[in-house]
């Protein structure tokens, strides 16, 4: 049986990692290559990098980070942020990432998903989703709406419909971030995660709200997630990946226990 994956998420700006609380007030906390190595040695199953570099002329810095990460760790990792074309995808994959993730660029141009899937295979294309609970209404039947720009801009699109459409376009996986839970450390958005995971046949990575190991147990069981993203709870040293895994393992969740 497959193990549930624990995936640290590193936000990178101008080649340095940051962790923001609800996307505001990001502060620098380290070197992405060293942090990736640390999590790799501590049992991370995969690593997600989000490039939040604002200016396009500094994008090359991220490709250099990707190359150095690929020479240092030997587990899969994905890169998102600023990927708008198949050529952007190709550059990141050639630099050594296993997967690329697209978020707002895919909403604005859904063909990006199918083009990426055709060029590199579905397994390379992760759909990042930022989702906000707005309550059910005719154009948002699930009650969950797609948002972009860190949650500031509602898109008038239903999250479940978008997840299913992205799957049919060729997305190989979904990284599902709840804007409501993100940065709170109060737990993942279980009903959203379970809703999406039960209605697509591609793996779902839960994101947003992790604060303690019980939250991961909850989202990987009741939430039906295949993987869980962690950030602050590991970045600031409150928990280690191996501690989280021991907790999950002792609670009957299949995780990778040696590495």
């Amino acid at each position, binding site marked *: *049986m497959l*193990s549930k994956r624990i995936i640290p998420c590193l936000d990178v700006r101008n080649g340095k990692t940051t962790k923001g609380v609800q996307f505001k007030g990001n502060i620098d906390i380290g070197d992405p290559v060293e942090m990736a190595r640390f999590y*790799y040695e501590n049992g991370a*199953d995969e690593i997600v990098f989000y490039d939040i570099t604002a200016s396009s002329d500094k994008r090359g810095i991220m490709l250099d980070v990707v190359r150095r990460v690929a*020479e240092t760790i030997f*587990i*899969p990792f994905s890169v998102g942020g600023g990927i708008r074309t198949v050529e952007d995808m190709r550059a990141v994959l050639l630099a050594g990432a296993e997967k690329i993730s697209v978020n707002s660029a895919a909403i604005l141009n859904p063909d990006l998903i199918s083009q990426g899937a055709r060029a590199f295979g579905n397994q390379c294309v992760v759909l990042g989703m930022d989702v906000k609970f707005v309550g059910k209404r005719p154009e948002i039947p699930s009650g969950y709406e797609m948002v972009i720009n860190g949650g500031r801009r509602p898109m008038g699109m239903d999250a479940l419909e978008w997840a299913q459409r992205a799957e049919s376009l060729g997305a190989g*996986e979904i990284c599902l971030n709840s804007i409501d839970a993100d940065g709170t450390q109060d737990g993942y958005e279980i009903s959203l995660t379970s809703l999406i995971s039960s209605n697509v046949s591609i793996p779902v990575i839960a994101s947003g709200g992790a604060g303690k190991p019980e939250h991961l147990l909850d989202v990987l069981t009741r939430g039906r997630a295949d993987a869980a993203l962690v950030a602050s709870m590991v970045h600031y040293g409150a928990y280690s990946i191996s501690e989280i895994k021991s907790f999950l393992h002792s609670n009957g969740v299949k995780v*990778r226990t040696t590495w």
Partner: protein
Amino acid sequence: MIAIIDYDAGNLTSVARAVTYLGYENVVTRDARQVLAAERIIFPGVGAAGSAMTSLKQLGMDIALHDAFQRGIPILGICLGTQIIMKYSEENETPCVGLVPGTVRAFSPDIRDADGARLKIPHMGWNRIELQQEHPVLAGLKPSDEFYFVHGYYPDPLHADHIVGKTRYGIEFASVIGYRNIIATQFHPEKSGHPGLNLLDNFCHWTPNR
């Protein structure tokens, strides 16, 4: 020198990086002569069997692989490479290189786990292998070690004694195949952390019995 065969089937740099990290000279090559001159061969690949076989034939690599196999050069298959060395693949109904007797089959769309829950395809993520026999390339691995898989098809060797390791995902399938100077894994050792690097390192030292 280790030759890593390049045949337009996915990104091969991760395999080269892992072998370089372990300290072995290697070259990613599309030249069949260079492959035949190598001490060892790694045959990786990600993608579909049909287009992969077309490129292999255009490069003369199908013949080079047969020659290398006959000469006893150690060959490591990875992922699609492991499937392509079989006789035939159900994917695109493709006759393959045929070094190992057997067929590559698709996971059935309604495979289920022990609790009856439908399993997602492709089989993507970390899973264990149950060794069926000792093999020098798998020396030093723990039963709890896991490996990174990404695939919707799996090899089904004709002869049970060619199966070195099995993995469970709804069904049991051959995840490691060994036959004379070939060892082949359905998973990606270059993306499987220390156990994967251990396996690659073992391969780089392996002298098959003639």
